[in-house]
């Protein structure tokens, strides 16, 4: 299994002189057991009487940063030990083990995965980097780019979710990766040698062996499937059969569902409408669902009118309705304390937590909620007139606010707190009369009116305005900030009316607003728009 580059040197003996060690790079993140895996690989070689050397630079990378371990192994010859290098050389690495999918991508960028040489063994689960997590909105990197690159950069690829497999077997990812390494056949050692390295003693050895075995079998099976179907061209995914539009289980929904059918929307739009309908009925009641549909029907009617005129040139038919179906539902199911209390007291919620934390029958589960309602939120559910009066009594309002505005630890499943939450959740019947409801509905009407007005001149711009609803999210402070962003964006869009590229700018405004303060400069963009608008 030694690699033998037959090089015709101008000098005497070539032959053995060109043997190179087997090189293995392990790319991992801190805390993933990269060190353990490295130790196993070294022991595997040493047990077989080979010389093995590993190096690494853990340094600060040990704390969630990316790091790389490097192993070289070779037989000693006539008592002469090979001289082994201390770092991987791009273009000359035999095996790369990556414990996370983006790290697999990074190893390709390091040049240590090359088509002529490298077996890439990688887990395709994601452990998100901080920039992906903290981005407002959607910041997750595109895994398909890694898949594409692996396809062209690796000689052999073994890719599956080794993390999930390890967890299923009660172990950690290093065991599964070791199994995949064994299954890959990249190293000239028999299966028993791997077993011997993991050993039978020690903490977690049994679980390690289980995860190892499962990964080994999976890898071997993958190889067999690959061999069975030689060079099958990447099959284009078959278009999904147009499955039936989902039906509600509860017959009380039938009348409303039929109104969605009557719109005769294309499937994705119809599904959005049905899900939207479900969301608002769940939020309030059947009547509220009917209100949702009235608004949607109104937009649909306009859409039909505009669509007939614009569909042929823009291809936007029903886009306005579809986006409204989605964002109107989100807008109508606004986040108030009634909704929070309702969600927290539902029966399914407790079961979900039990499953998540793995609480057993003989154990007791409690949950504590971290809530911080302010007077604004409480006043919001009071009848509109009374709430407005209260807001005008600045002295009283301030006095009350000081009593209310503080963090509260709510023991959800103690009888007292549960009853209280249950009562708040039951305030649904008051909701329509509340100040918050009045504010939200006025906001929705204004938003839809602006969208419709825009759509009549510029269909795409109308759609963009509907999508701006995405900006509104969160509670209390966050909610206020998001509303002011929404207001800024929609006001700026108003100035774009009449421009050919208005929709493009509107979309940019929205994307920038989502990232405002975290890499986006909304005010700067608005200034730019003012300069030409």
């Amino acid at each position, binding site marked *: 299994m030694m690699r033998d580059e037959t090089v015709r040197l101008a000098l005497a003996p070539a032959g053995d002189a*060109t043997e190179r060690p087997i090189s293995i790079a392990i790319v991992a993140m801190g805390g993933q057991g990269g060190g353990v895996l490295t130790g196993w690989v070294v022991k595997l070689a040493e047990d077989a009487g080979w010389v093995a050397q590993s190096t690494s630079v853990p340094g600060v990378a040990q704390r969630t940063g990316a790091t790389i371990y490097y192993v070289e192994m070779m037989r000693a010859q006539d008592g002469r030990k090979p001289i082994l290098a201390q770092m991987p050389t791009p273009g000359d690495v035999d095996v790369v083990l990556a414990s996370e999918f983006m790290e697999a991508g990074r190893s390709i960028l390091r040049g240590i995965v090359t088509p002529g040489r490298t077996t890439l063994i990688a887990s395709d689960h994601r452990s998100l980097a901080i920039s992906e997590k903290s981005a407002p909105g959607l910041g997750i990197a595109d895994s398909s780019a890694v898949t594409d690159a692996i396809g062209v950069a690796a000689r052999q690829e073994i890719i599956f979710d080794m993390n999930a497999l390890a967890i299923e077997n009660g172990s950690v990812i290093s065991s599964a990766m070791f199994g995949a390494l064994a299954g890959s056949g990249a190293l000239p050692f028999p299966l028993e040698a791997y077993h011997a390295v993991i050993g039978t003693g020690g903490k977690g050895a049994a679980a390690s062996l289980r995860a190892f075995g499962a990964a080994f079998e999976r890898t071997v099976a993958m190889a067999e499937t690959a061999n069975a179907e030689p060079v099958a061209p990447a099959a284009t995914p078959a278009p999904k059969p147009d499955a039936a539009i989902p039906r509600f289980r509860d017959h009380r929904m039938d009348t409303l569902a039929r109104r969605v059918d009557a719109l005769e929307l294309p499937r994705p739009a119809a599904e959005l409408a049905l899900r939207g309908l479900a969301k608002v009925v769940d939020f309030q009641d059947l009547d509220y669902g009917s209100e949702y549909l009235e608004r949607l029907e109104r937009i649909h009617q306009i859409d039909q009118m505009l669509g007939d005129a614009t569909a042929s040139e823009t291809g936007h038919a029903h886009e306005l309705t579809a986006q409204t179906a989605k964002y109107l539902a989100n807008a109508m199911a606004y986040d108030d304390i009634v909704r929070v209390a309702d969600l927290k007291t539902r029966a399914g919620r407790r079961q979900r937590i039990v499953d998540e934390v793995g609480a057993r029958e003989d154990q007791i589960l409690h949950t504590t909620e971290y809530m911080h309602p302010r007077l604004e939120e409480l006043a919001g559910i009071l009848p509109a007139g009374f709430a407005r009066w209260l807001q005008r009594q600045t002295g009283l309002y301030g006095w009350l606010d000081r009593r209310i505005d503080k963090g509260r630890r709510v023991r959800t499943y103690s009888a007292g707190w549960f009853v209280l939450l249950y009562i708040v959740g039951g305030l649904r019947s008051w909701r329509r009369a509340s100040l918050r409801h009045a504010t939200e509905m006025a906001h929705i009407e204004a938003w839809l009116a602006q969208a419709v007005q825009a759509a009549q001149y510029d269909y795409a711009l109308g759609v963009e305005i509907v999508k701006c609803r995405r900006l509104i999210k969160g509670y209390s402070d966050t909610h206020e900030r998001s509303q002011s962003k929404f207001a800024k964006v929609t006001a700026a869009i108003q100035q774009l009316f009449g421009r050919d590229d208005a929709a493009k700018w509107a979309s940019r405004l929205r994307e920038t607003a989502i990232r405002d303060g975290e890499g986006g400069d909304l005010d700067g963009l608005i200034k730019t728009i003012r300069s030409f608008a």
Partner: protein
Amino acid sequence: MAERSFAKEVEHLRLGDGETFKGEAILAITKGLLQAGVSYVGGYQGSPISHLMDVLADAKDILDELGVNFQSSANEATAAAMLSASVMYPLRGAVAWKSTVGTNVASDALANLASGGVTGGAMVIIGEDYGEGSSIMQERTHAFAMKSQMWLLDPRPDHSCIVDLIEKGFQLSEVSNTPVMLEVRVRTCHMHGSFVAKDNVRPVFTLEDARNSPKRDLDRIVLPPAAYLHEQEKILHRLPAAINFVRDNKLNEWFGPSKGKVGIVLQGGMYNNVIRALQYLGLSDAYGNTQVPLYVMNVTYPVIDSEIAEFADGKDSILMVEEGQPEYLEQAVNTILKRRNHTARVQGKDVLPMGGDYTVQALMSGIGAFIEQNHPHLLGNRPPLPDAREALALPEVEKLKSVVPSRPPGLCTGCPERPIFAAMKMVNEDLGEHHVSADIGCHLFSILPPFNIGSTTMGFGLGGASASAFGQKGGKRSIAVMGDGGFWHNGLTSGIGNAVFNKHDGVFLIVDNYYSSATGGQDILSSRATNGNRKTNNPIIKAVEGVGATWIREVDRTYDVGKMKKVLTEALTTKEAGPKIIIASSECMLNKQRRVKPLVAKAIKDGKRMVKERFGVDEDVCTGDHACIRLSGCPSLSVKQLDDPLRDDPVAAIDNTCVGCGNCGEVSEAAVLCPSFYRADVIHNPTWWDKFKARLSMTVVNSLQARRSRSRVAVEFA
């Protein structure tokens, strides 16, 4: 000692003559010291030296048997000063630290030591943290060795060679009355390999002997006129003695043919990668049989002129392989040859990179260029070289560049420092940005996303001192951060004492996590663990009060974000004069988990009532804004995409690595974020009272839930 046992490693230290040691080089070095018969060892932890310190700290029995005094020094200056025991007495001693940072701290003591010279062998183990993955400024220790005249050993990355050079290094130190440095690079320290051990040696002359018959000699003290004599001694006696020893004992090595038109001079540490580079060029086999003559400098200072000249004889050109800048060795080699009117051409940084790691790739292209220019025939039938450029140019790979996110290091799951910086970020929102001088330690991660707090870091323990220009009254106050490690390293005097004395009107935040955490969780003065060999439990507040500070606030549970915020706000706004000192304490979670996890597991197994906590997110309540993550960055707090076409943005999610520290909940409460976080407490082995209460309340819960379910329209799809 941080609840982590190095018992297995300690056993390696017991290996006897002829037994094979297998393991990391830093541990081989530790064993090498015992084989060389050291009387005392000191040092300061830090990558890549921590392992040496940790293992010795756990090796009390062996050290006692051998009569070795081991100390975890307060800082590198302390460690260097410890070597003064070898000045008057024939005692071998070694100290270790991360360089160049540690060498900088130690410089005062080292310069004094090197001037007066030593009687017993004195050695500094230098963990040279240079190149990729380094956590410090990119500098070389070489300059320091030259300016103070300490011999610099740079062994080939091979356990036997390193251990052998420890023994030889002590001898060299003794014959030349000069302290020596043993330089080992990070990758070499962490390199797994093997060597044949020897028995440990118990020193003949002991520390007790020294104490019982003290000696003094004014000539060894840096005072005029002795100081002038020292310089003459260095030139006239110590340097020639060292040169003779290095040459006579063949510390430097020759490989390959004795003659040739070209040759390579290299630092010992470069050897392995040079061999691989030569192999790629078809000029060596894997076992080091090179076609090009090599002169390997296992001693890089002093340079042995006669050996250089001898190596250059008959060669047209030689290549100096010297990692890092400036090119001290290349200059030295040029001077040596010029003075002798030698005609060999010297190349080095003209074909090799001036700075950065000498990777195999860099060496391959540099050596290739050197031979191409001077002796192209040697390259013969040029084999194809490893090259990733073609693969990197593929459009699919090109595209990856903009996709793969950077992965900066961050605070661990449950880190007690996270809530401190979350609170600082919130206070910034109320009071505006403040100038923050940061320090070295885990808390420096505050400078990275998501916190982005901290403008400068000037050195370990110097967070306080580096704010000292901003101590006047008026305007916004500056905030200086330091860890407990930095505090005891020098921050108490350089930061706090200085601020008290100069009536500094600013805020000093001391982050106390019970250990020197960033370097692996070593005990320090204020550690709260009981340590049989050391005196711990000396509170920081007493030290701070002792130097005269008056405005002091303690937050003894950093997870109380509300309190943390309040205290910070008070410190930034109070009218009181002088430094405002906040001591924020909670145990390092990494060490706490190591300590507590087995205890909890055992208690549960024994049927004792135990509550396990972790956090979760109600995904229907979360709106996907991620403000919570921008105030946290906890590895266990992530986001996930829901299978719901109505939702655009992924929601927050907590995975099962959560340790239930409480930060998520506290932050969302203090920052008034959202009510989607909950803490789930699972009571293991509940008592009858727990069960009774739960049954009672769950009856209420279940009946109310059933009642509402009946009236609610179910919206699930069939």
